């Protein structure tokens, strides 16, 4: 904008401005070209899963022609997988586990984040750092000792064993981003509440939770997607099909069948992936806020 204003006075550099515009148009073309290529590559696997799930077994086995298009679309794979009692069991287990873990996680992390962000006490700073460090401990480092511990409690092959260990995946990060959100609430608000004689629980329920609601939604989405997608713990701790959540259930049980029913496997995988994708589609901004919060907030 300032360049065009300058051009009027100085016709000498008009030429330069023209080249600038060409450069900008060139940049725009490159941008769109790369984005289209990336979008095609990024969407290809889900698209191919969808295509496969709509094919009949005969069409999948037929090797002739383009595998990327479906000639006789059918929903029979979806009906078959929905009526499969095994798959229904996986779905139910996933829902129970995820609901429990999200509830537990949010209670633990909101309480702790409130205390760490507002009520200083001995070691609180160290604990906040510890929370972040715990977030950096991957599940693959802990699953063998946890296998022994969960086994000692008699919770192997049970969804409650998973409910017990999943908080290690969700609580540290949720607490960390909630500390960030709570710390960004102006102190004048709680001073005003204190002067009005509010107690700590009132302050948390009436001020912090409503004001930090976007952060709470972001943390809830994170807890949900992580516990829905968790794979290492259920693979290690659960071997009986009736206690399996969706991820390991689809990967191990449907694939293990004698004949590879690829149409059904893909239909099952897509339906298992649907809940996080739906949440993402409707709450994209919260999702992204939660994603970037780890490094940019807190």
């Amino acid at each position, binding site marked *: 904008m300032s360049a065009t204003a300058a051009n009027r006075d100085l016709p000498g550099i008009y030429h330069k401005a023209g080249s600038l515009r060409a450069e900008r148009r060139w940049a725009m073309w490159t941008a769109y070209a790369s984005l289209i290529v990336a979008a095609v590559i990024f969407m290809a696997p889900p698209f191919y899963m969808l295509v496969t799930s709509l094919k009949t077994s005969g069409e999948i086995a037929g090797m002739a022609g383009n595998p990327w298009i479906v000639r006789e679309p059918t929903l029979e794979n979806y009906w078959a997988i929905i009526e499969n009692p095994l798959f229904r069991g996986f779905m139910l287990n996933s829902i129970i586990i995820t609901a429990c873990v999200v509830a537990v996680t949010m209670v633990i992390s909101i309480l702790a984040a409130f205390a760490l962000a507002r009520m200083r006490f001995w070691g609180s700073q160290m604990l906040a750092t510890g929370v*972040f460090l715990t977030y950096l401990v991957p599940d693959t480092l802990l699953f063998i000792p946890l296998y022994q511990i969960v086994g000692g409690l008699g919770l192997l092959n049970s969804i409650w064993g998973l409910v017990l260990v999943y908080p290690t995946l969700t609580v540290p990060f949720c607490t960390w981003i909630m500390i960030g959100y709570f710390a960004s609430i102006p102190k004048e608000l709680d001073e005003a509440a204190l002067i009005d004689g509010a107690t700590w629980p009132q302050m948390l329920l009436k001020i912090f939770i409503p004001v930090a609601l976007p952060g709470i939604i972001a943390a809830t989405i994170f807890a949900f997607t992580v516990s829905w997608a968790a794979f290492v713990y259920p*693979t290690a701790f659960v071997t009986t099909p009736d206690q399996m959540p969706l991820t390991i259930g689809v990967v191990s049980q449907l694939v293990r069948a004698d004949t590879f029913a690829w149409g059904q496997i893909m239909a099952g995988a897509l339906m298992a992936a649907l809940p996080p994708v739906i949440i993402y589609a409707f709450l994209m901004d919260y999702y992204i806020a939660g994603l970037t919060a780890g*490094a940019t907030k807190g």
Partner: protein
Amino acid sequence: MAADGTIAVRDAAEITGGRANSLQRFARRRSTIAFVMTLPLLAVIVGLVAYPALFGIYLSMLNRRMTEFVGFLNYEILIESETFWNVFFQSCFFAITAVLLKALIGFWLAHMLHHIPNNKQRKWRGMLLVPWVIPPALSTLGWWWMFDPSYSSINWLLSIVSVPEVPWLGHHWWARIAIIMVNVWIGAPFFMIMYLAALKSVPEQLYEAAAIDGATSWQRLRYVTLPMMANIISITVLFSLIVTFANYDIVRVLTNGGPRDLTHVFASYAFQVGILSGNIPRGAAVSLFMLPFLAVCAFFVLRGVVRRNKEQM
């Protein structure tokens, strides 16, 4: 930080005797309440992370039947085995290559997204983040089907441009490449989102100043964008190094370590040895080999995050 705390201190200085006492009691009660509120968190951290980590170290020093303390024997046996060094090589190769590719692709895409008009960014961003949203185990299943030796749809696409059939999961080098491809596919959108957020936080005036000084677009990238983003780039790369190095899902679904145990990473090998073959101490030893590497990365991530917080205050 705690504004109410500063009030209490100021009041305590002004007010005498009994009032100060009650304020002190108030402050003490407050820290007691705070401690009680963090107890569940402490229980998770201590009971489910710190204790298992220490217990894992102890476990790794037992014999196979966990009846005898054998010191570092499990580690020594591992170091002497050829499979272990294959695992070591594959883990490092996988993590470094995949993270580099993710960072480069993510940086490129973030730049491209930053170039297009704001109102269109949302739609593209939404579409490009889809690989990150699908649970990795399930999308890897889709990839596995795409790599299937007899029905490979990728080979079909390659055959259009008359590339000979690729034995994706049959040959160990192709299997390694396949694993990296899937990991990059899942992880690049995350980098893109992080870098896009960082790009948006670079003040526009800096670019204007650089343009006035006659900087080329390369110079703007080199002397404005990169220094402003250095911290977030290092945090993201190190964080991703941790996650990628410890990855399990992709290897488990795609190759399960094969062919001939050549694509095992630490996590999948620990699973193989510890859970499937039932040698829990040795499995614990395998996964603990990740610890030094992870600790170094974690230290630098933490330093980066603390530094960033200080900048923002």
